């Protein structure tokens, strides 16, 4: 029985995009996909792009490149947009897009790279491809920069064909901005512009805004419900200087020290109050799920699970 390997990438740029504010008007990207079959046998490949025209569009539209087979040791360069348009009409403006590459080989037998380039060649965005199965952690930290014309876009993709959830927070000197928990439709890619959060004074789940003086910090996010459900990265770019960086965690296939969370129930108020009372007395108890990173030992976040199913007290 053959096993299918899937490589996933979050946010390729294809045509015009509103996901990169500050770039020259009308700039349009060509996504170049490079694939190498590292084996001495033919390797069938299937490519799917899931995209949304607008931010927060929910369920992604799907387009597929006609399946093909890479010859032994073949390296193929594909204009992904042109390949998709040979089959189906693709909108000129796409906000978010994720890439899925399936093959019948073993892990590592297909090497893939995607780079989006504008017509001038000055604006270049590399998109790392990951195998979600290899991800060793559910929690990821990236640096963010909002200084000197830099912008940071956080991109997350649901790697599953069912709904997934993620949470995110921004950690800066002296504070935390909690975006809270959000849903991702099957295959959906979302982009979060940190500069926009700051400029538009958007309140977090605690009613706090990101202070205007914040220029650097860490993005911390995690996927819910198991390893590899959500993949993501941070894109830091400077439109004037024509440079960009991508921050993501690579696959760490032999990691055993960091496989998710430990969690425990916590009562409010804490420490646990005495629940001894007289017969007939009613007490209100709020129950939090408290999560701690296996990586750092740090307590990450609390979640009110008082009304969640499966909670008993």
């Amino acid at each position, binding site marked *: 029985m053959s096993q299918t390997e899937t490589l996933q990438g979050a946010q390729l740029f294809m045509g015009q995009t509103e996901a990169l504010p500050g770039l020259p008007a009308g700039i349009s990207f060509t996504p170049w996909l490079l694939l190498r079959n590292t084996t001495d046998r033919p390797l069938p490949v299937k490519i799917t792009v899931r995209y949304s025209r607008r931010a927060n569009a929910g369920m992604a539209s799907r387009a597929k490149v006609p399946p093909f087979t890479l010859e032994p040791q073949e390296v*193929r360069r594909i204009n992904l947009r042109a390949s998709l348009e040979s089959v189906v009409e693709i909108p000129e403006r796409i906000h978010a897009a994720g890439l899925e590459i399936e093959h019948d080989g073993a892990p590592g037998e297909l090497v893939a790279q995607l780079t989006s380039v504008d017509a001038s060649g000055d604006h270049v965005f590399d998109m790392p491809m990951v195998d979600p199965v290899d991800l060793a952690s559910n929690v990821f930290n990236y640096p963010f920069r909002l200084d000197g014309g830099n912008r940071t876009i956080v991109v997350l993709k649901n790697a599953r064909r069912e709904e997934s959830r993620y949470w995110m927070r921004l950690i800066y000197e002296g504070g935390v901005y909690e975006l809270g928990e959000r849903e991702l439709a099957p295959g959906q890619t979302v982009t979060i512009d940190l500069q926009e959060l700051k400029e538009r004074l958007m309140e977090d789940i605690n009613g706090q805004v990101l202070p205007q003086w914040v220029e650097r910090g860490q993005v911390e996010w995690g996927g819910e419900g198991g390893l590899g459900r959500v993949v993501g990265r941070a894109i830091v770019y400077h439109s004037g200087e024509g440079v960009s960086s991508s921050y993501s965690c690579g696959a760490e296939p032999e990691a055993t020290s960091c496989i998710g969370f430990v969690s425990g129930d916590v009562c409010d108020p804490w420490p646990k109050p005495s629940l001894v009372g007289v017969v007939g007395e009613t007490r209100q108890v709020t129950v939090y799920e408290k999560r701690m990173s296996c*990586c750092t030992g740090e307590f990450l976040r609390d979640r009110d699970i008082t009304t969640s199913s499966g909670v008993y007290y």
Partner: protein
Amino acid sequence: MAGQEHGPDAPFTSGSLQLEHNGQTIWALAAQVTMTDTGHHLQFDIPVTVNQARSSRLEGLWWRLDPADRVYLIFTNVDARPLAVRSTFYIAGEAVMSGEWRLGPHACQVLDVDEVLGAVAGSVGQGGITLTYEGEPGSLLARGFVVDPARGFSSIF
């Protein structure tokens, strides 16, 4: 790092970086090296990763969009012992060039792919690379760069 002192051989033009920390786990520190030439709109990122290779073989690809693009392959011996490396370049599925390199302890080798392939490269836009070595898995790290300063194009592979 350009402003740092580098000893009698300064300034350097290539090298490798090793970070050690005393965090609770190996994941407690994340790092990335970014090399920027803002004058030419060039930038290259090198993630600093925990080395957990399981094989003494590295597979990759090289590419360029424009004949003017220069392609470089950099590989580094992360061990304190010499390392023998064999490189094989593929074009159109065929192995077209092989070479052997002896890297000293912690030494770094920069290859200009056009110089290595010579006339074979021609106007070819992409190919495969295999690196094998005799040391322990993880002894060799490799990264590639594609660059054209004239149009501000830079990418990694």
